[in-house]
């Protein structure tokens, strides 16, 4: 029996890997420019915001391009994953209908695939950092930990919205609105330091704010980030993942009745 279980675990891993592979491959295959598309969207946002807040309404944030790009790519990971996860069950009735198909792989594959897209934009991030004279120090060893932390958080959100969309069919219209709100309450194009203290206390509960701040500290200033908020985000995300996963498993018993 354990052999069977081991095999199904290996199978889940293989399912995730082919789904990610299919997603990445198909995204760049039919276009002449290929992987360039992966960085096209963040670069366009970078240029727009740079023009807006460096020229039109200057915010006077040092190293603004680096500041902005870090915010954009890490937020994009959350945003695109959530958008894909919310429809991942209803758009794949054929897979959900397949005996023994592990539906738990669908949100996991969306999270992983968008992490791959993020990794593809890293070289560009390094170029921008270098161009603006960033000082990367030994604190860079924390970077994988931050990415792992965000992975847990994004995955929790993905499981939650995927299951919720099966219960309430209009989640796919509500989620973009919530993401939009998150976009503006997270210091992506502005700086967390410019938030008044009282608002900062509330907005500080936003894990994305803590994560993006920590990334900036490490990548732009070469400093060690405050560890307590990161630890809190990690603990909170793990707890959220546990709940979201259980909710997903519970909802998955009824997926076919609802789609």
């Amino acid at each position, binding site marked *: 029996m354990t052999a069977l279980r081991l095999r199904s675990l290996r199978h889940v891993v293989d399912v995730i890997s082919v789904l990610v592979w*299919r997603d990445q491959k*198909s995204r760049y295959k039919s276009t002449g420019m290929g992987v360039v598309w992966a960085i096209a969207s963040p670069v366009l946002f970078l240029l727009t915001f740079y023009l807006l807040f460096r020229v039109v309404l200057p915010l006077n944030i040092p190293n603004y391009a680096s500041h902005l790009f870090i915010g954009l790519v890490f937020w994009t990971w959350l945003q695109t994953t959530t958008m894909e996860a919310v429809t991942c069950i209803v758009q794949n009735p*054929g897979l959900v209908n*397949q*005996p*023994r198909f592990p539906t738990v792989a669908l949100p996991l594959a969306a999270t992983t695939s968008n992490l791959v897209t993020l990794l593809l934009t890293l070289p560009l991030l390094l170029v921008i950092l270098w161009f603006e004279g960033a000082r990367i120090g030994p604190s860079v060893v924390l970077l994988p930990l931050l990415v792992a932390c965000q992975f847990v958080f994004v995955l929790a959100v993905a499981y939650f919205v995927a299951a919720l969309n099966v*219960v309430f069919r209009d*989640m796919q219209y509500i989620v973009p609105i919530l993401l939009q709100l998150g976009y503006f309450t997270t210091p992506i194009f502005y700086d967390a330091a410019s938030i008044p203290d009282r608002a900062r206390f509330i907005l500080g509960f936003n894990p994305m704010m803590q994560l993006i701040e920590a990334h900036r500290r490490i990548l732009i200033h070469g400093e060690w980030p405050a560890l307590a908020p990161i630890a809190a985000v990690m603990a909170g995300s793990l707890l959220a993942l546990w709940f979201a996963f259980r909710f997903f498993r519970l909802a998955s018993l*009824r997926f076919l*009745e609802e789609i």
Partner: protein
Amino acid sequence: MEVMLRAEGLGKSFRHTVADGPRTFRQWVEGGFLKRRGRARGRFWALRDVGFTVERGEMVGVIGHNGSGKSTLLRLLGGVMQPDEGRVTTAAPIHGLLELNTGMHPDLSGRENILINGVLGGLLKGEVQARMEAIIAFAELEDHIDDPVRTYSSGMKLRLGFAIAVHVDPEVLLIDEVLAVGDMAFQQKCLDRIAAFKAQGCAIVLISHDIGQVKTFCDKVLWMDHGRVRAMGPAEEVVHAYTTAMTRETRRRTPSDLPDAFTAQGVRLRSGENRLGSQEITLSDVVLLDAQGQATNRIAVGAPLTLRAVLNADRRIETAQVSVSIANADGTPCLDVNTENDAVALPPLHGSLSVTLDLARLDLAPGLYRASVGVWEKGWSHAYDFHVDAYRLEVTDGRKVSGVLSPPRHWVISGAVS
């Protein structure tokens, strides 16, 4: 024998789709965050008290009309839906031959899609790689395997999907209708493959509309009716009972007060005698045409024959099936074709629609024949209009032939072989 799959007292209920609890977040908020309503209210049983076993090497057919609970049963067996009552136990992992091309990506090549679909179908990556060449060979796609799947014809896609699906070495296999499509040669190959699975000891559950197929392949047949088992037993018996009931259903729906009609050949069509069906769609202007397009009731052996009919529907009907059969004077069926087996889909019917069947040649032996034409409910549950033996056809030839066929032929007589 070893039982591979066992269903005990299976039951499944569904909510009625309308007006039962909030379906969207907005409704939920507007309704004052009321709890979504529980199970007891407004539910109906799609399936109840279904129990049977499938042994190693046994093939069980499931027949029944659309909406009889066949698909729900298949999903419960596959474990992708949870029963509200009863349980399913299996001695080995279940594989499905259900939707074939799910997960394929049109921009990727056939080879890449084999890897994707193989893994999504239950294999490990390494196992798919090991079977890659066998799958390509089975699909007969050696020349196109590195082209993107979007360039494939629908037949090629189907072959690819089937080839992947049958390379899983199943011990318990669920099959849903997939055999009804594809060209004849490939269909035969698929049937052979399934027969081979069975011979190797695979337990199979086949859901099919094709009564003939069920009769040929299955050891045991389960007849589902309104979510319950109407009959279960040896294939021959259950299929016979099912077809008899189907005729009875058609007779029950046949109106008794329908005025008589006459065919172009002057044959009287009398409701309940040689005209059966609910008349929701009616058949009219059925004619047999010769090669010149002239109405006829006499053709020469080997000549082409065209049958044309007009379907009339007063209210919209989503789709239907049309059947044409020809029997000889003894009543022996010589030809029996229909739109489902020939994979022809009728568009939604409202008003009238002309249907033409061209037979390139009819090599029947000379003699008198009668043709029957019918238009049926899409799942064959009853006839809308069925004209039984109402169209006369005489096949003529200078020669006398006994038997059923008279194909083009010549004899060769040569000197004695030393």
